């Protein structure tokens, strides 16, 4: 299964870079993620609960980082074991380039599943993977950028003001966190 897409994020490449290496951010962005701990050097240990078609399982595994070009590109590789459900593994090659609006994040995802998920869920696995990727990057974008303006207006006018001040760049939870 292969998936290639890109997203424009209204944040500077350094902010995007820092976010993608932050286990807390990844935990919030990976759908169904229960825990994500560790370091970039040693890799992150992750636990994710997901349901693929008829198979629901808790996948545990390690995400490692390679081909690190700070601020520009990296590859995330991971394999999760889901017990009786089988396994899922894959890699995402992520590149970042500055654009006037912020950062263009391009990703090439390669994923494979094995065991019961492959036998029972293959029909839906491509759609599932795309949905997972879409959801991840949507959350990631939202986390880095902060809530969209309409919602932000209602929920936190102060954030919107701040975002306005920072030359059209929204300043979300994460940006505030890292200053």
């Amino acid at each position: 299964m292969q998936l290639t897409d890109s997203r424009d994020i209204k944040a500077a490449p350094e902010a995007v870079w820092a976010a993608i290496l932050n286990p807390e951010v990844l935990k919030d962005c990976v759908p169904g993620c229960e825990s994500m701990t560790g370091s970039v050097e040693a890799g992150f240990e992750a636990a994710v609960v997901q349901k693929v078609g008829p198979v629901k399982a808790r996948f545990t595994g390690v995400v490692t980082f390679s081909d690190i070009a700070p601020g520009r590109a990296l590859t995330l590789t991971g394999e999760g074991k889901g017990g009786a459900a089988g396994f899922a593994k894959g890699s995402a090659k992520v590149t970042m380039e500055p654009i006037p609006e912020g950062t263009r994040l391009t990703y090439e995802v390669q994923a494979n599943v094995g065991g019961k998920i492959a036998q029972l869920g293959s029909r839906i696995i491509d759609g599932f993977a795309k949905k997972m990727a879409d959801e991840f990057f949507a959350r990631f974008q939202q986390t880095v950028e902060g809530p969209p303006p309409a919602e932000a207006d209602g929920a936190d006018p102060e954030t919107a003001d701040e975002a306005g001040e920072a030359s059209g760049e929204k300043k979300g939870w994460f940006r505030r966190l890292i200053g």
Partner: protein
Amino acid sequence: MPKDHGIGASSKRREDVRFLTGKGVYTDDLALHGQTYAVFVRSTVAHGRIKAINTANAAAMPGVLAVFTGEDFKDVGGNPAGWLINSRDGTPMREPKRPVLAHGKVRHVGDAYAAVVAETYNQAKDAAQQLADDTDIEELPAIIDMKAAAADASNRVHDEIPDNLCFDWGWIEDNRATVEEVFRTAPHVTTLELVNNRLVPNAMEPRASIGEYFPGTGDYKLTTTSQNPHLTRLLVAAFVMGIPENKLTVVAPDVGGGFGSKIYHYGEEALVLAAAKKLARPVRWTAERSESFLSDAHGRDHVTKIELACEKDGTFLAFRTETYANVGAYLSNFSTATPTFLHGTLMAGPYKVPNVYVNVKTVFTNTAPVDAYRGAGRPEATFSLERVIDKMCRELGLDAFEVRRKNFLTPDQFPYTTPVGLVYDTGNYQATLEKAIEMADVAGFGARVAASKARGKLRGLGLSTWIEACGIAPSHLVGVLGSRVGLYDAATVRVNATGNISVMVGAHSHGQGHETVFAQIVAEKLGIPESSVEIVHGDTSKIPFGMGSYGSRSLAVCGTAMTKAVDKIVAKGKKIAAHMLEASEGDITFEDGKFSVAGTDKAKTFGEIAFSAYVPHNYPLETLEPGLEETAFYDPANFTYPAGAYLCEVEVDEGTGKVDVVAFHCADDFGNVMNPMIVEGQVHGGVGQGIGQALCESTTYDETGQLLTGSYMDYAMPRADDVPFYNVDYSCQTPCTHNPLGVKGCGEAGAIGSPPAVVNAVIDALHRGGHTHVTHIDMPVSPNRVWQAING
């Protein structure tokens, strides 16, 4: 008026009463005192090196009695291949060991590398998962594509086999040069590349086995889902476990379908026996449906290039094929015979084609083992031939019926030696073709095309003729061809004192209806009611010997053995009658259940003779032993050659690509027919499976060797609304010349003849709709593929 009794009657299947009322007894129905449960730990990767298996956690779990890994079986024998095939250069095939449990490497998804035995099924299941979690397997690149596997020595299913080839077989190698010369000079050559799609057998009853060990005597008992209990006993005892055959009983009780997949011995059978011995308790295992998908021997899976050389008028000059045949990760028992001697030898079809050359490269891949499945090699041969002939007819603008008529062997040419090594004893291919044309109302086809068109559908007519070699097989001949066993069969007819009869037969019935048909034959021959005859099968402790049920052989081979045993009973009965009637043996005749002195009214009934044999108060004890029980072995002189012609009509929806089979006509020559109803049922079942292969069934592994069609959500079995009402005829009969019943076998026919008829019909429909660029669509001819072909 049709007979209502004996040979030729449509006696109702007596076994169906228990099957349909839930009173059948299958392996999983047996409950044994002290029984334990085995669960297998199977690889989730297609190819991997086993680095470590930590059994400690699993062994300590509640209820766990024993844990086994490949290490425990590394010193016992492997499960052997039954046929030795030599490559074109004379070297013997590569035969990697097939262990009870994978050792060192796992070679396909579903390859069992460990097993857990526990008090309950759930405990065993939990511990098996623990064991899987505690196993370190280094995944290796999977070898899936056959041509890539044969071209890449760097990645190997078996480390000792560099090119992943089991063998590269030429048939007949000496004819290769001549055939090439014919192709160089032929006025026309048609070439077709095709795939014969891999099938999962999907017997209704999954495989199941129960092992028992009796420490007091050292005896073992294996109850298992087998088409072939004696062969299983031979393999598991002599080859794998080293148990003397007299210490092992194999019982195959009611078995819910096999279609080939239950011919073979599987490692699970050896495991439950070994575990039963270790624990001195019964050990049982029943496959889950997922396990069946992953580990039953699959069928077909050929990639073929076939060429037909002919005159411009369609007269065949030569066939040439190059086939890659998948054997999967290990050699299953018949896997080397299926793509060779059950395939290449049929590549002349029912035609008088002078030159044929067949090349088969058999390739190991990281997929489940592939072996014989209903038809086994002959459907592949028939599909290749009938598709390339259909393509040739279109290329040259010839009539498909005329081309067959022109090339058929004629009835006066039998016995006929084919260029691929068989001797057809008898046949009348013209008769079945004309019968099919009449049944299908080919004359009215044009009107039906118009009617379909009016409904917005394209209608097509597809013809396939077929022939097979079955009733396998003459032991001498198959020995020459590489078989490591003889393929005779045996039966014992035991007449009890009160005249009723138990017949112990080597053939195993798992849906075929032997219990009914065999009783009909015995009843007819002895002039007694069918209800007085009981057929006993599937128990090595009761039956002299048997080579099982497959290859449409039960009636032709075992039925003949039974008939010969009945003849011996009659011969002995005549001796007893001569004594009782005070006549000379030569004057005794036997008819309608009575032994009579010719030309007199002096007679004794069969029952009186039987009683006298067991209560020999007036009996020639000096010259004749008491009792009335005879055993016969029968080794056939030749294969049998049933043949036929099938016509399929389809409607294709151009908008969606959906194909509906709207009519299917079968004109078959099975020789003499013992029970017409059962023959029709066999043809229905076979054609249903063939339509399933043609339209629905696809076994798909992804490039990493994951089985993507591992359940009925993704593997499409044909349903009732995918098949039409069949029109079946078996009136064209040329009885087999070398068995006394004159029978040929009908079990595989439908699955052999139907796939090309369906595909030819689809191509015909598309051409009638103007889509003449479509020359072939690979099976399954799914709506997607048809739509792509139309719009491609």
